[in-house]
């Protein structure tokens, strides 16, 4: 089957599932799909390009807040608001990425960590623009051609986002850009010697994945029709990192596995273990990494290898 057909089948299956779920499962499913989308983008940045960044959620939040502010406070037409939001995220990403090209490893991590925290401070102090610490509610997705997209149809929109993001990172990964990113990740000097513009590669990777996160944020804004600072806090950035590593960094399938597992785990644990669910979660995380440092996707590899 060609990639296009595979993609269409995936869309139909994933979106179709939404129509068979009740409201609660639809809600969890949507948020799960969004986390998978974020994990795919983050996996490209972290796993394939080797950049440790904690700013992914800040861009997610930037996308979410910007679409709400542009649409409902500045009353921009929808397409313009979307473009403006993407442009905003891309600009900020560039502003952070360009000076950071000289930084490696945990320095970039620290800059992006500070950025993530700064974002929350700005949100909280934003007064009537950002709704302050309570955030913004009381808005709805505008109608398109007289129709309001809601319920399982909106889940279909999220599926489209997911498939789009997957297509983008997959395409990039298999192109020369993906090879350049891996080269920069493994050995920047060797990459430079081979003619790769290291700085430009890093900047493009960071900006692109951050913009993807911003787009995901725009879609998120209409899931619960509310945005507030705690949603985009820094702990989520750590969870995202966990997802990608536990699943298997550098592998798209790994990002998916990690995101699905770690997002759903608290929902499963809470009724089972009650009060101590967070402790059990931590223990399971440590165990997962000790047991399989290359990521759980390694188990799948072994399984499929042993079968062939």
């Amino acid at each position, binding site marked *: 089957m060609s990639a296009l057909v595979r993609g269409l089948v995936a869309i139909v299956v994933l979106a179709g599932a939404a129509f068979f779920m*009740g*409201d*609660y499962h639809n*809600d*969890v499913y949507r*948020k799960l799909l969004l986390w998978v989308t974020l994990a795919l983008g983050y996996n490209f940045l972290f796993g394939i390009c080797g950049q440790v960044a904690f700013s992914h959620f800040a861009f997610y939040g930037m996308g979410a807040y910007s679409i709400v502010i542009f649409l409902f406070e500045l009353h921009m037409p929808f397409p313009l608001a979307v473009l403006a939001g993407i442009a905003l995220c891309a600009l900020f990403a560039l502003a952070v990425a360009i000076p950071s090209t000289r930084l490696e490893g945990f320095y970039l991590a620290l800059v992006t960590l500070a950025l993530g925290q700064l974002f929350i*401070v700005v949100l*909280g102090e934003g007064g009537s623009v950002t*709704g*302050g*610490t*309570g*955030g*913004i*509610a*009381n808005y709805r997705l505008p109608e398109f051609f007289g129709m309001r997209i809601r319920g399982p149809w909106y889940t279909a929109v999220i599926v489209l986002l997911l498939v789009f993001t997957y297509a983008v990172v997959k395409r990039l990964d298999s192109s020369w850009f993906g090879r350049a990113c891996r080269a920069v990740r493994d050995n920047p000097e060797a990459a430079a010697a081979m003619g790769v513009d290291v700085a430009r590669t890093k900047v493009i990777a960071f900006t692109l994945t951050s913009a993807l996160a911003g787009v995901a944020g725009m879609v998120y804004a209409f*899931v*619960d*029709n*509310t945005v*507030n*600072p*705690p*949603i985009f806090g820094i702990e989520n950035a750590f969870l995202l990192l966990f997802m990608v590593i536990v699943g298997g960094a550098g592998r798209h399938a790994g990002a998916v596995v990690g995101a699905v597992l770690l997002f759903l785990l*608290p929902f499963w644990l*809470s*009724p089972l273990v*009650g*009060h101590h*669910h*967070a402790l059990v979660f931590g223990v399971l995380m440590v165990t997962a990494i000790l047991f399989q440092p290359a990521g759980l996707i390694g188990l799948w590899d072994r399984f499929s290898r042993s079968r062939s």
Partner: protein
Amino acid sequence: MKRFIAVLGAVLLAGAVQAQETIKIGVITDRVGVSKPYAEPATEGMMFGANEINKKGGVLGRKIELLIEDDQSKPDVSAALARKLIDQGAVFILSVSLSPATQQQQTVTMEAKTPQMTPMNSADYLTTQLNNPYFWQTGPLGSTQIQTLLAHAKAKNLKRVALITDNSDLGQAIGKAFKGSIEKAGIQVVADEVVPLGATTATPQMQKIRGATPDAMFVAGVVTATNVLIFKSYRELGLKFPIHASYNLSVPIYETAAKGLVDGITFVDAYDPDKPEVKAFEAAYRKETGKEPVNLNGYGYDGIHLVAEAIKKAGSTDKEKVRAAMQSLTYAGVMGAKGMKYTFPEGKRTGFDPNGMVVRVYQGDKQGRVVHVGLK
């Protein structure tokens, strides 16, 4: 642990059993995150209250069953849990976690037309940002707190005051409410400081406040550790102006965690230990659980009783009838000044009587007598 197995078992049976089923009340609390210090005692108060109601025969002949979920103070998880509870047949949802989480749950309860109440959150925006007729707030609002404090301080003729809070979401919300009311009363706010969570000292902020020479300082913060830092700096710098604090100071931990620091501080409280309902509540709580009750338990206790009363008044668990019943309910609970009743005035969904708070003062390390009641 037994309760959890009981709840789990009941949930599993929920779909199957038809006759004489329990009345399911959903509770969204925080067991591990930043709201834990107040969410946990409130939930314990709820469980105690539900037990008490069930012992007396339940509501409409049926027992109350609490379905308790932990949202970890994460608003988007919170919204998903609200849907889960509704799917499981909860007729009412009680929210005691973070205020933004309660807000996010509202988008769900509004759509699902399910009654929801926070017996505890005090952020003013919860009933104003969204026009959700199924949501009520019976926690003491930030605006009520400051107006009560100002009423008490009226005799002191304050002209210039300082305001200090922390950077938590509730601390900021209450700080805003404080500032608004203070300025409306014609008093100038000469310093407006924020102490971030995780700070190791509040001295720079207090120095700025000292430099502004205020007549008094209002503390809007709700994070105990940060408030303790503020009081420490206040003592270190040898400051003397009076301190008026939010309801966070009513939490009993200050008596041990802040020894020597709180003498003379006036604060608002929704709890009058001399009230007969309170005395009865405390005695029953001690007897049943063997633990010493705290005022935070009372919020949850009142919350579950309000829900029970509304269902009784409605005569059924039909959501529309319960909604109408709650909106027209009058109930005297544990919290609030003597004689205070929860009511929801026409078109409003905040139930805590603005006249229902008391001002108390710390004497030594102990929470002392009530020095003022209400807004007069």
